[in-house]
């Protein structure tokens, strides 16, 4: 599996097929048993998680993984924890508020009081705070209203246009393929189908692997 620079790649698959596990391995939360993970030509599978963030590879968790007892600003500042200079932190804060004006309106509220869409924005914003080269989004559309999903996906596209590489893990196949340039479909932990997202959209086997894979032979 490959993610080209400044592209959006979608990783699709049903429940329990190992999509999130791939992300967790890439961001160093779990160790891979075999195989290698390369980032910018450097093998990163044995680095501790915080150093991988320092290399510019950031995983954005689902919206529920924020720090509820902290304010929105504090949450975002945590995202920029690895930044050395304070000026850089403030600049990035400005940038994130620029992407998501809604967060600026609520910057002093506790994160626990935000709505689902705002939480997802907060998570993406937190991922952007550390000047990453590539972000990996774990189901940005989970449990959100279609309108908000559209809004978030527009922002993901904007993020890509600003020079970042994006890997999206999704269950919402249609939306993800509309957004992405290239897609991988994973089934039982193995990549089943891959291809240009426009092609995948009409590929029968994608539907199949979503519905469990086995066709009833009558």
């Amino acid at each position, binding site marked *: 599996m490959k993610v080209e620079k400044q592209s959006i790649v979608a990783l699709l698959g049903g429940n329990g097929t190992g999509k999130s596990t791939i992300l967790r391995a890439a961001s160093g939360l779990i160790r891979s048993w075999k195989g290698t993970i390369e980032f910018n030509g450097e093998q990163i599978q044995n680095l501790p998680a*915080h150093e991988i963030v320092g290399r510019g590879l950031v995983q954005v968790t689902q919206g529920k993984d924020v720090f509820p007892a902290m304010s929105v600003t504090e949450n975002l500042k945590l995202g920029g924890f690895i930044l050395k200079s304070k000026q850089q932190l403030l600049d990035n804060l400005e940038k994130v508020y620029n992407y998501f004006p809604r967060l600026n309106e609520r910057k002093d509220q506790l994160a626990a009081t935000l709505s689902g869409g705002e939480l997802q924005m907060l998570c993406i914003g937190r991922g952007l705070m*550390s000047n990453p080269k590539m972000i990996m989004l774990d189901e940005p559309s989970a449990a959100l209203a279609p309108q908000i999903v559209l809004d978030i996906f527009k922002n993901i596209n904007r993020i890509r246009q600003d020079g970042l590489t994006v890997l999206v893990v999704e269950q919402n196949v249609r939306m993800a393929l509309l957004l992405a340039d290239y897609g991988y479909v994973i089934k039982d932990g193995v990549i089943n189908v891959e291809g240009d997202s426009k092609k995948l959209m009409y590929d029968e086997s994608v539907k199949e692997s979503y519905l469990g894979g086995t066709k009833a032979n009558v």
Partner: protein
Amino acid sequence: MFNKLRIGKKGENIIFGTFVLIYIGWCVNSPDMNIESLKSVLTIGLSVGIIYGLVALGISLIYTGLDVVNFSHGEFFMIGAFAGLTMFNLLGNQDWIFNIFPDAYGWIIYVVCLFTAFVSMGLFGVFIERVFLRPLTKKGGGYTVAGMGIIICGFGLSVVLINVAYLIWNPVAKPFPAELGLPMEIGGLFLPITYIWMIVVGLSVAAGLWFFLNKTKMGLGIRAVAYSKDVSNLVGINVPLYISIIFGIACAIAGIGGTLVGPTYQVVVFMGYIILMKAFAAAVVGGFGNLPGAIVGGFTVGIFETASSFYISGSHKDLYAFLLMIVVLMIKPTGFFGVQVKMKA
């Protein structure tokens, strides 16, 4: 870590209030009750309470950060007292300090002792965490999963540390003759200066910790690690390092507590055990895992214990802290400052 005061179920508060009223009535009926005795009960209660509070603060800090209860925390308190005493004995007969500061001689030495206890216990805590507790998490899952092993390791550490201290300093109780000046008069009451010292230093340490956790970058990281290790990893926090820092800070605070107690009571190898138990009661009363709650709980246990031994019966002094803990657990299980329910080992 810092939750607002939980206005619990109304019934809980009413029953608890009734108990408090009955208790106050009992004390007021006592023949010893007068304004003088009340003043000394409050001072002694507060000064003992802040010590319980400081140790409880460490227990709560470790509980929020590492998800385990550290049962060897009393021994860090005891070794901290010995570290302060050792420094005191080193500096106590140095004439040059006396020549430079003839007026504030005793104070300066004592502050150096406190500082020594703080730093040495911090480093010792990091050492213990790295060498004895960290290997238990090797199998994966971090502290949350290795919890039960670490709790039992804490009991073992407690025994080992007591016996190591026994070998080094022998079991005789040692005086800590800090010269802090004459008793101070407050509101017609002459108080040994060490009591005031305990309250002032203890509260400053607690305030300093609050400032550290809320206003500094490292404090922000500590709060993040306390809430979720995974998400902290993902924002680039070096979680293993921060866990060591949390453990070190908790032990350093216990060390300060030990040195604060030294001049009032004596320094004994076995002083850690009972302090740990009472600090545990204080933490439960305040709300386990809540840091301001630990200090409030410490004050509550200290005053309750002192008042009861004064007005009810002095021969059961060590009973009251646990009595209060049981009552609080029965009526108001979350303590004064309830914390969110969280999966813990």
